């Protein structure tokens, strides 16, 4: 029997897929899969560092996709949830997926399958929320700028949506928590990191990075938000359920309350 090992990878999704490839190919008894920043060695297990190889990653990606479209989405989305121990769970999930023959049905009575699909669902929900809650502010450089602070690392998932929607304007969405952003320069989207001095909340105090016209439109939007509310139907609980408080500071219509 092969000794059990802890595999270390670089934290990227391709790195993870490469790890899966290596584990399958070398028939490694996987004890755990960790990112190189974690560095929690098990006392009695060997560790092996896996170097990311895009070719190998692609083969795993295609392998999963060919068995089930649903599964590849689940794997990618659940990976982006950055949950503790997600790598090992996903590894088990992929093993199960590859072991079953015939048409792929999801066994939701299996704990891991259910958990992965629930995690993927949470990430999907966060992606959808970010597509809704991004609030661009027009800077003096004619760039529509937004900062966000999502629960999960959803920037890679929302890039396509914004690219195909705002094809004729430059925009930049910056993840304050993970310190990187995506910038669209009218041609394509690129990853950037900024030395952001201040986070541009939609605060009442104004920043000179933005045009005056920008604040006029924010005022109009706030007014609209207020006048479209029907007072006799007030339901604050439902309101906060739909717009959780942690997002408020970035929403200009909630700026007075946040």
């Amino acid at each position, binding site marked *: 029997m092969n000794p059990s090992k802890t595999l270390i990878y670089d934290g990227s999704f391709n790195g993870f897929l490469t790890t899966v490839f290596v584990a399958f190919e070398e028939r490694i008894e996987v004890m755990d899969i960790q990112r190189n920043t974690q560095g929690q060695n098990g006392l009695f297990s060997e560790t092996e560092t896996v170097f990311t190889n895009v070719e190998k990653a692609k083969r795993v990606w295609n392998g999963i996709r060919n068995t089930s479209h649903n599964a590849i989405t689940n794997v990618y989305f659940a990976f982006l949830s950055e949950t503790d121990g997600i790598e090992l769970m996903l590894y088990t999930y992929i093993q199960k997926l590859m072991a079953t023959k015939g048409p792929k049905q999801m066994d*939701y009575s299996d704990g891991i399958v259910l958990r992965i699909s629930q995690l993927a669902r949470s990430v999907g929900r966060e992606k959808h929320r970010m*597509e809704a809650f991004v609030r661009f502010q*027009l800077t003096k450089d004619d760039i529509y700028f937004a900062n966000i602070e999502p629960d999960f690392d959803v920037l890679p998932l929302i890039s396509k949506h914004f690219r195909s*929607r705002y094809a004729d304007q430059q925009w930049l969405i910056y993840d304050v928590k993970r310190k990187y952003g995506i910038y669209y320069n009218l041609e394509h989207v690129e990853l950037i990191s900024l030395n952001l001095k201040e986070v541009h909340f939609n605060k009442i105090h104004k920043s000179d990075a933005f045009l005056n016209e920008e604040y006029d439109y924010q005022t109009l939007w706030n007014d609209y938000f207020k006048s*479209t509310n*029907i007072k006799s139907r007030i339901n604050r609980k439902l309101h906060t359920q*739909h717009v959780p408080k942690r997002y408020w500071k970035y929403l200009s219509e909630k700026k007075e309350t946040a």
Partner: protein
Amino acid sequence: MDFNRIQEKLNVLADAAKYDVSCASSGSDRANKDKGLGNASKMGICHSYTEDGRCVSLLKILLTNHCIFDCAYCVTRKSNDVKRAAFKIQEVVDLTINFYRRNYIEGLFLSSGIFKNADYTMERLIAVAKKLRLEENFNGYIHLKSIPDASDELMYEAGLYADRLSVNIEIPTISGLKLLAPDKKHEDFTKPMLKVKNELIRFKNEHKVIKSTPKYAPAGQSTQMIVGATGETDKDIMYSATYYYKQYNMKRVYYSGYVPVAEDNRLPSIGSQVPMLRENRLYQTDWLLRFYGFAVNELLNNDHPNLDIDVDPKLSWALRNMHHFPVDVNHADKRMLARIPGMGMRSVEKILNARRFRKLNWDHLKKIGVALNRAKYFMICDSRNWERKDLDAEKIKGMILQQSTGKFRNQYSTQLSLFN
């Protein structure tokens, strides 16, 4: 931009438009054309929610709140003394584009009071949509209101630029309409609906042969009914909703609890409570009809003209039809699974998948997300413990109510409160 003028107009005309409940931006998959602005998201996006918990997806405004009609239920009726305003076409276009670019909205929902006549008003609405589409290359979502009695030619043109068209029937019964909106005829409402329906069918057929047939209202049409203004029963409402779904291929029928906006002896007085719970029960019924395979006469008929207020319509149906239960979760077909109270369509799909692997027990069902507090009385699974034993409908209802809470409970509870 004259900021103050626009601000004032926006406040008046957004306020007047808010009683239209539809804010859906789903159902259209218009793509971004030639690197222009916007596209439509098939599932729709709610960009914010008002404090009453309703989705804000579109910039919902009236072009004007001047109106020649005097419908009793309407806040902009001729005889009401409110501030009037009107947008210029360019102003609406600018607002829409600028809100859209900042990712505030999915698009525009444009309605209007009726000035001069139906066709004149409809023309102006179309002009806004046309300008957005042709001059600004705007591909976001546009919902236009069909003005009752607008001509067929205009309804055809409207569908070329809009994603969704809707005309609000408002009063579910013809007698109610006569009472509250004496200037309008029932046929005025159905005429544009019929035209839109026929155009949708024509588009579908032509599109099969010629792929380049211009899109016609890809998100279909919808309508809205006011609930609780004229003393109609739930049966009246749901039967007419079913009629509109079938007869005019409606995508949606909306139910809007009447918010008293005027003192009028034909209507509930100002300050009376908005029937929100009733509205909720109607939506639940609507969903049962559209997604759960129920027929309207199973839920509402002459013996049961109104929905139960204290329990949801599916549970209420199940309690009246105990002979169908308990259902065996591991063997029953999809149709029966969907009829178990507390079971949603997502759970049904998961169960159908999961039970190929093993027999499901209470633990599995709980993890899958079935609302067992209701469902457990109506099903058996791979377990020797099951709840129903020899309980009758009344007892089950009592136990479910006892073990649950509801935010509307105080409105209908018969239990006297001690300190009042």
